[in-house]
């Protein structure tokens, strides 16, 4: 399912808040990303096209593409789940913004990869077990797994990221994933605060967890 199908050709990036949109544009604009996908976008271009040699970015590109895969997974998961109309009331109010966040993360991480002269990975083919969206409980149960996995995935790369810019960008996302994880835990009667310090997981264990969802 493409984002076009999901959004009927509407601009695929919309923000709940004007400050979100501006924050994203600031980021996207600074690293040279276009605005056509952003609702109401107005962007000051980077006029200064320096010719400096690319700096070494080490494994940051690999980490960013790893994050991009996870964000694709999350965004499409929420897009599909929310389209089923399973949630109501406060649950719906708390989960709906998450979809927008994950979408913004996809675009932001993609922009970061491009800024580093890398090639963003393509959206993975996703497959969700049939029961994933069969009830609100199942949807939220899977969501809480994804969020906790996402938190540990970002935390697990903290010491591996070399570029301070990439690190800070990743951190701004990681904190939001922590909020998601706490709220999903609350909604599923789990523990929103499973540890006084976030756990971290290496790429291998995270990929093993999400592999069943990658086609």
């Amino acid at each position, binding site marked *: 399912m493409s984002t076009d199908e999901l959004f009927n050709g509407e601009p695929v990036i919309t*923000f*709940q*808040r004007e*400050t*979100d949109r501006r*924050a994203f544009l600031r980021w996207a604009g*600074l*690293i*040279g*990303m*276009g605005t*056509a*996908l952003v609702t109401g976008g107005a962007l000051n*271009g*980077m006029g*200064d*096209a*320096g*010719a*400096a040699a*690319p700096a070494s970015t080490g494994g940051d590109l690999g980490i960013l593409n790893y994050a991009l895969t996870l964000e694709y997974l999350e965004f499409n998961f929420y897009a599909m789940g929310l389209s089923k109309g399973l949630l109501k009331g406060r649950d719906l*109010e*708390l989960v709906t*913004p998450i979809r*927008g*966040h994950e979408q*913004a993360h996809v675009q*932001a991480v*993609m*922009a970061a990869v*491009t*800024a*580093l002269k*890398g090639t963003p990975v393509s959206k993975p083919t996703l497959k969700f077990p049939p029961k994933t969206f069969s009830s609100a409980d199942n949807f939220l149960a899977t969501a809480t797994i994804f969020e906790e996995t996402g*938190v540990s995935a970002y*935390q697990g790369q*903290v*010491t591996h990221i070399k*570029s*301070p*810019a*990439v*690190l*800070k960008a990743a*951190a*701004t*996302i990681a*904190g*939001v*994933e*922590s*909020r*998601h994880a*706490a*709220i999903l835990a609350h909604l599923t009667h789990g523990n*929103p*605060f499973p540890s*006084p*310090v*976030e756990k971290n997981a290496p790429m291998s264990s995270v990929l093993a967890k999400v592999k069943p969802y990658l086609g």
Partner: protein
Amino acid sequence: MSQHRDLVHGELDDVSERVALDALNNRWALAAPSDFTSDVDVLNFALTLEYLEATFYEQGNARNLLTGQAKQYLTQVQKDEETHVQAITQTIQKLGGTPVAKPMVNFDGAFASKTMYLTTSFTFENEGVGAYLGAAGYIKNKNVLQAAAGIFGVEARHAAIVANLLNKPGENGVYMGAFETPKTKAQVLAAVKPFLVSQMTTMPGGNGSPNTGGGSTAGTQDSGLLTAGSAALLGGAGLAAYLATHRSTDADTAD
């Protein structure tokens, strides 16, 4: 990257990687260059905030303003903050630094009602999130960075859950957008200043083990963090000791 031209609309080619990265860095360069001069410096700033939070919950939870799930959640939050105080104190000591003293605090009014309590908590937690994010760029030791990132995430969890207890809207309440926003030290200090009576200037001379119990506000020294500004957050001799063993290229502003 050409296959993604539909997303970047060719603009990328106008921006070199170095310019792009510099600009990306500028995007986050919110903290003043002189905000922190070492990891210990950052950690002592964090320790002050964690002391503030831990004491706040110790006192607030003792008032029995909350019941049910709210009570349960904030009891956990208190334990988390106490753990953060201990962990940061130990980390500073491991780095050869001197932990700042526990600040004296005054939460008058914050415990007037359940709503006031939770509203103040909401402020503290979100300030904590912004503070860690704003200071992260100054941390050089990877292990310290990992710990700070882990604490940062938990503060974000607290912020979200407390917002939900207040029945705040999903967006701009429980969540503060798709990206967390860093805050400068000055911004954070301005927000928490009303609750800080003082910070003792005398550094713990002994083992520096934190007193996280009891919610004491005892103490009369009215100097330090507030009157002396950010200088009080500097680790003094501990900082020098740290630099002696953890020399890094851009930490030479401290002497």
